[in-house]
């Protein structure tokens, strides 16, 4: 008998054995449950019911223990070891997690790269996917003959995209040299100059953006740009508030958005910050500030349970941080580790939260306000000294008065060291922003005039920060350019970005798709857009759920189609939108098949998702311990996102 037939026969025998095993296990579990019922002095009829229930549920219960609980515990154990298949197992503590979360070492850097890729898919890919899905759903929501047929076609890619066959077809179509897509683009460009111009612009934009992104992933310093993003977000928030009255629904929507942003940011900070040794004691104060602002907003929103949750988590945080500080050994170079700043910071945070917890409901806000003020003051004092990148206070004044913060633009070492890698170290701007909004929320309703002035003043300050940090970024990049030109060095500081943006592409250029790291991610996104039919079905169901009367009333009021879309359709399908976003982000982390089929040795790292990294690390290099740590990090992120989805699935307040 040949090998395959033998294997199939073996498998059938195993399947039969499994059925017998499950049947026996079911009876046994059922009898056990009935025995338990008897011990609990339940009636015989009740015991019989329990027997049958457990008997029928047993296949799942047994499988749950064998394939979920057991493996989950084992993997938690492995994640603290350096286990490799067929090798001995040594306990290494948190080393795997530290390497992965801090991006240390070769594998840590590759994991960080995979997380950056997933982030790219989430911020660029998911919105494009959702737009496609929404466009499809809106089209199919028209009362036209044959929409059912079109729905069939629109959905077809979803079931095909799971398998390797259609992905290979895509790979062939995307071949940079002679592939259909490039040939079609060139032919269109030759036929009509406008298409040529479009193609070249497309190439310019994609290569410029991806060159920039790969510079960030590589860890090239981004300089003052890191202050631009928080400042811009603050301006966006404040300008929303400035637009007329700060109505309750708008306020609560803003609060929810900022809660989500805060939760995500807080999780990243906690994961990265607390695992690093030694951590900055002010991180504890910073997280304390975020939690205090959260508690305050929950309190103002009249949800005492949420406020209590914030307070309790603040206390847990500070106690945990204090314990960690006490348990931390001295550094390897012999310098003694002082736990004192940590204990002080923890005590400060814990005192505020404990005070707010025991204070009466009426006093709670003022305790939190005092805490916020004290924390902000501590941060300010800390800021006034210290290194530049930790957010010297002088920087803010420089930006407010249109000065450049770059003291020695001709010095390469200065440029590289004063602004280290793109990281979250612009945390102080974030902290300041959160403290500012905390004060705003606390004041809400209390003193309308002061609040108005604060909003206007805050807008001006953050707008100045945003504009001037952007201007300084340009100076920073051109300073690097000058230094590089003078030294004749080519390959550093956003070299791919420079190459891509130096000249506008000529007519001969074509997209390189899978053969270039600048194009691999856009290729993958194109394929996910092609298979976004699942999101379409969700949108379609939401669209069908909108009562027609809304549109009829809007018609009577003379609202245009565009107004109807933005004022009725979009708000009412926003739960579906949020659902699709979360599902899309989770799917981006888990992408595997398409990367496996589409990658080449040169584009592998620029494509890898978290799941693909897990696959390579565990099953190609057999590093079980580290793979287990990756899978736990991945699981934590996904569970967090799912909880977020449940919590905010009704994030839009329907104004009744």
């Amino acid at each position: 008998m040949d090998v395959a037939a033998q294997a199939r026969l073996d498998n059938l025998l195993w399947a039969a054995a499994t059925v017998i095993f499950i049947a026996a296990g079911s009876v046994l579990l059922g009898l056990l449950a009935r025995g338990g019922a008897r011990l609990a002095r339940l009636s015989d009829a009740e015991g019989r019911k329990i027997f049958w229930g457990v008997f029928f549920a047993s296949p799942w219960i047994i499988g749950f223990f064998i394939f979920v609980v057991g493996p989950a515990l084992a993997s938690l154990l492995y994640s603290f070891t350096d286990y490799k298949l067929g090798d001995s197992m040594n306990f290494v503590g948190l080393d795997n997690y530290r390497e992965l979360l801090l991006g240390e070492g070769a594998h840590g850097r590759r994991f960080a790269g995979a997380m950056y890729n997933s982030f790219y898919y989430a911020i660029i890919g998911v919105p494009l996917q959702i737009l496609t899905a929404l466009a499809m759903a809106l089209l199919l929501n028209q009362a036209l003959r044959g929409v059912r047929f079109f729905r069939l076609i629109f959905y077809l890619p979803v079931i095909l995209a799971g398998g390797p066959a259609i992905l290979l077809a895509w790979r062939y179509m995307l071949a940079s040299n002679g592939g259909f897509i490039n040939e079609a683009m060139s032919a269109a460009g030759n036929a009509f100059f406008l298409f040529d111009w479009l193609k070249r612009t497309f190439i310019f934009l994609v290569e410029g953006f991806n060159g920039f992104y790969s510079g960030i992933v590589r860890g090239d310093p981004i300089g003052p740009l890191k202050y631009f993003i928080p400042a811009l977000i603050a301006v966006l928030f404040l300008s929303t508030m400035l637009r007329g009255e700060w109505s309750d629904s708008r306020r609560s929507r803003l609060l929810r958005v900022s809660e989500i942003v805060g939760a995500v940011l807080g999780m990243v900070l906690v994961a990265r910050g607390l695992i690093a040794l030694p951590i900055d004691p002010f991180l504890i104060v910073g997280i304390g500030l975020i939690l205090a602002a959260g508690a305050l907003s929950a309190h103002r929103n009249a949800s005492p349970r949420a406020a209590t949750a914030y307070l309790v988590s603040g206390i847990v945080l500070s106690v945990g941080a204090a314990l960690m500080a006490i348990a931390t050994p001295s550094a390897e170079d012999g310098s003694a580790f002082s736990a004192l700043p940590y204990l002080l910071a923890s005590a400060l945070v814990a005192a505020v939260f404990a005070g707010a917890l025991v204070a009466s409901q009426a006093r709670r806000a003022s305790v939190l306000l005092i805490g916020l003020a004290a924390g902000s003051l501590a941060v300010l004092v800390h800021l006034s000294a210290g290194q530049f990148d930790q957010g010297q206070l002088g920087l803010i004044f420089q930006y407010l008065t249109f000065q450049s913060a770059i003291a020695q633009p001709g010095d390469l070492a200065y440029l590289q060291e004063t602004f280290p890698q793109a990281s979250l170290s612009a945390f102080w701007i974030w902290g300041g922003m959160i403290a500012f909004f905390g004060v705003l929320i606390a004041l809400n309703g209390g003193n309308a005039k002061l609040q108005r002035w604060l909003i206007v003043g805050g807008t001006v300050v953050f707008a100045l920060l945003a504009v001037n940090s952007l201007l300084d970024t340009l100076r920073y990049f051109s300073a690097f350019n000058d230094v590089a030109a003078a030294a004749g060095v080519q390959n550093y500081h956003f070299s791919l970005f420079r190459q891509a943006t130096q000249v506008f592409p000529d007519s001969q250029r074509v997209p390189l798709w899978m053969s270039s790291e600048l194009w691999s991610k856009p290729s993958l996104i194109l394929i996910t857009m092609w298979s976004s039919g699942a999101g379409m079905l969700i949108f379609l169901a939401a669209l069908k759920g909108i009562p027609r009367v809304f549109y009829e009333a809007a018609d009577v009021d003379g609202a245009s189609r565009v107004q109807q879309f933005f004022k009725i359709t979009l708000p009412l399908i926003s739960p579906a939108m949020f659902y699709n976003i979360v599902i899309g982000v989770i799917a981006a982390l888990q992408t595997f098949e398409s990367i496996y089929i589409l990658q080449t040795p040169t584009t592998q790292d620029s494509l890898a998702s978290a799941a693909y990294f897990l696959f390579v690390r565990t099953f190609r290099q057999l590093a079980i311990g580290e793979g287990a740590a990756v899978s736990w990090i991945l699981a934590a992120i996904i569970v967090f996102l799912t909880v977020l989805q449940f919590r905010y699935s009704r994030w839009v307040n329907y104004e009744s």
Partner: protein
Amino acid sequence: MSTLQHTPDLSVNVRPGRRARYRLNLDARSIVFYAILIAFSLFFLFPLVWMAGTSLKSIEEVGRPQLSLLPEVPQWSNYGNLFADPSFYRAYVNSIFVVVVTLVGTVGSISFVAYAFARLEWRGRNLVFALMLGTLMLPAQATLVPQYVLFYNLGWIRTFNPITIPGFFAGGAAMIFLLRQFMVGIPKELDEAAMIDGANPLQTWWYIILPLSRPAIATITVFLFVGLWNNLINPLLYLQKAELFTMPVFVAGKFNLQESPIPWQTIMAASVTFVLPVLVIFMFTQRFFVQGIAATGGKEG
């Protein structure tokens, strides 16, 4: 103009009688919509057509830059060569075998377990049910690594067991939930009548609930089928031996960067044979898919 937008419920069950409402009135607006719909459809169908067209081209034609969708001369021998390849047959039979065994085990055990959650009243049911729904949150990757170690220690690498056996333990919480929701809707009186006639729960399940749940069972079968047929990662991890390869691994393995020129016509011919069953099943059972999506949010399998 309000006849054109926001008509209620075109969804799954449009009764024949209602179709009369949608007359084909081609005003400017609907012509625009049809044009967009057709443009979208071309985008979605194109890779499939491209695949079929390429599978009939000659190696010379595949080698040059090209815009033509159809082959100059259809090369049916591409398929002849593929069918003459014993490893292709083996992979196809392996795939069918794996999918059938897994489906029997999974659907059987799921219908068993769903019955416990839907029709039986017992202490602890809600707890176990909540636990089961909780596993929906857990991503497959969380247990992938230790499961591999488990199967490695069982000596199951290079066998079909890691692929087929876990299904027998009611794998797939979403599918259990879907079937359970359906079973809850079956009238209670039927069970009670059976009980009075002296049937035990096992008999009630087999003679009453299972036959009545056929539509939902069809839904989960079709849905699971596509996921299993397409599944690449498990065969890739566990089979590791050319004789055991299923179609996804076989098709993926046909593609090899080292080869020059890459024999796309052969790869695409294998792809067509791989996609065909899914396509046929989808065409005939698409309404089941819509229900499956509603239950799972689009995650397959």
